[in-house]
């Protein structure tokens, strides 16, 4: 008796939908087991992680504010991953977007009465996007023109981006009246994203996440470019025969993912933080990779995946306060979740059959 795996010609939609749900359930069970192991009540943890964030308006706003950058970055990354290109340096592109956009806010400090201020915020956002695109062009160029592994170069550039931000925040961009703290001046109000609701949490930057999802859904469904991306990923030889250029596509998908990450970065400093600090990201660029896979690289799936992952981040912070669960538990859960998603993926690609005896 043995189990046999057969490749599916096509995946039934019900399995396409159930696979990530089953993965989430499996990850929650494993997480609960681990919590029991370190002596915490899994039932209480479940309530703190997954129910309490929905009970008050403040947490709900927080959920959206955390999910938006994840969704925005992950939507960009889905273009890369669908084309089988592995940009894992979104964290670096995020930091660069925040740094360059934030620098504009710092140098235009106090210019509003003289020059008028309505150009400042759009300039910042544009600069953030351009910085993210430019930073993503480095691994894209090295990959497309020289054949260097984009996985390793994009990751190394994350470290370099973090160090660059640290250098400027401790040096040229430091607030001279800031008691030597490594941070910039607080941005002028005109350089901040407006808030959508009372409570100073929900800033307008979250709309970009939603817009990215709608735009990506349109591109994948309706445009030749979206088809091109999918084709290169699933059948590279066929794509080459059809005359699609590998190099041009590499630049395009890296530009999209870098621009999205850069925009998320500038929104974080202009919406959430309001100044530059040595660290501006709680690992959004890496968590977004999980979101992309949790959403099965589909735009609407990514929207849901971003909310789920934001829930684990907020839940983790609450659990640290309420139950003294170490913050690393969140990371363990995220890693487990991604692994479960990838493991469940096998059911969408293969059919399992129990073979009792073999016909000769």
């Amino acid at each position: 008796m043995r189990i046999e795996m057969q490749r599916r010609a096509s995946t039934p939609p019900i399995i396409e939908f159930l696979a990530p749900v089953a993965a989430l359930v499996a990850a929650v069970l494993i997480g609960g087991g681990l919590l029991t192991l370190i002596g915490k009540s899994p039932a209480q943890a479940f309530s703190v992680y997954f129910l309490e964030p929905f009970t008050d308006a403040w947490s709900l706003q927080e959920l959206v504010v955390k999910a938006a950058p994840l969704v925005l970055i992950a939507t960009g990354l889905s273009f890369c991953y669908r084309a089988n290109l592995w940009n894992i340096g979104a964290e670096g592109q995020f930091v660069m977007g925040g740094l360059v956009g934030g620098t504009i806010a710092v140098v235009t400090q106090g210019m509003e009465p003289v020059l008028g201020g309505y150009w400042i915020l759009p300039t910042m956002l544009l600069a953030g996007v351009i910085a993210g695109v430019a930073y993503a062009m480095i691994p894209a160029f090295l990959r497309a023109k020289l054949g260097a592994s984009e996985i390793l170069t994009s990751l190394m550039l994350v470290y370099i981006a973090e160090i660059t931000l640290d250098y400027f925040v401790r040096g040229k961009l430091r607030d001279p009246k800031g008691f030597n703290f490594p941070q910039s001046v607080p941005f002028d109000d005109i350089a901040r994203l407006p808030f959508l609701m009372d409570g100073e949490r929900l800033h307008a930057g979250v709309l970009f996440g939603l817009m990215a999802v709608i735009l990506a859904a349109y591109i994948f469904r309706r445009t030749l470019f979206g088809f091109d991306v999918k084709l290169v990923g699933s059948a590279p030889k066929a794509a080459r025969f059809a005359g699609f250029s590998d190099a041009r596509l590499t630049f395009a998908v890296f530009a999209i993912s870098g621009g999205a990450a850069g925009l998320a970065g500038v929104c974080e400093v202009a919406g959430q933080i309001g100044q530059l600090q040595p660290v501006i990201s709680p690992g959004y660029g890496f968590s977004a990779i999980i979101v992309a896979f949790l959403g099965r690289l589909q735009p609407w799936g990514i929207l849901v995946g971003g909310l789920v992952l934001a829930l684990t981040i907020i839940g983790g912070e609450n659990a640290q306060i309420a139950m003294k669960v170490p913050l690393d538990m969140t990371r363990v859960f995220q890693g487990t979740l991604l692994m479960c998603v990838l493991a469940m993926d096998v059911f969408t690609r293969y059919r399992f059959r129990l073979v009792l005896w073999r016909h000769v």
Partner: protein
Amino acid sequence: MSLQMFELVLFTIFTAATPLIIAAIGELVSERAGVLNLGVEGMMIAGAASAFAIAILTGSSWLGILGGIGAGVCLSAIFGVLVIFLAANQVATGLALTILGTGLAGLVGSGFIGMKRDAMAHLSIPFVSELPLVGKLLFTHDVFVYAGWALVIATGWFLSRTRAGLVLRAVGENHHSAHALGLPVRRVRFLAVLFGGACAGLAGAYLSLSYTPFWAPGMTAGRGWIALALVVFASWRPAYAFAGALLFGGATVLQLHAQAAALGIPGQLLTAMPYLVTIIALVVLSLRHRRGAIAPASLGLSFMPER
């Protein structure tokens, strides 16, 4: 610079290169079998945390080493089941492993922050350590450094001179042909992945038991990723990996000395050195060979036997 100073610098290059050598050799074997494991950083840091925790609890460095190796093997086993038997995407699973390993290391290590223990003893090998010039430089290290050298030699011999090594390379070059010849493709790959995990765990144990004998979150500082780059840089050959690791170890040591000497270079630029060197190394290598010419042909592809 005096001769003694020079000797000291060379000596520290060997120690700085050791975690890179050990982890790179493990990844090299795994990649030669056709499996790209991007989780080296996660396995390494989990190894560092486990090794330190067990060494503190039992008072024995040797049990600590075993704990570090065990942590690496366990994590690589999860990875292996996913990518080899369930045909999961290797890049994404490797990233998941790094996230998971970093988190687990934080959980394991949280009770041990701030504790210190003595670094493992350095062993002077009798007679040869008395040799002029090279004696002290080469033969007064701790056990990890010797283990790293032994791994390089043993792996080089295994891959190029034994039947089992030939089988492993065949599996990594063309899994369909290997399968047709009756070779157990998935079993060979799984064993290679476990070996990679053991090596990454050992490299982590070196960091927390000898190189800097304490536990701190993030103490691997990207060494796992650099080891991955080293495998590419070495064109998948153990001896080249050894030479490359010395180069990277040299960059690290020079950076430390430059920082101490206060040359007026921003500290951040020096901290960024290893990462910059890695990118430059990858570029230089790509300029010499076009991609795909030297990598194992089945690297990163999953294999499902069609009955």
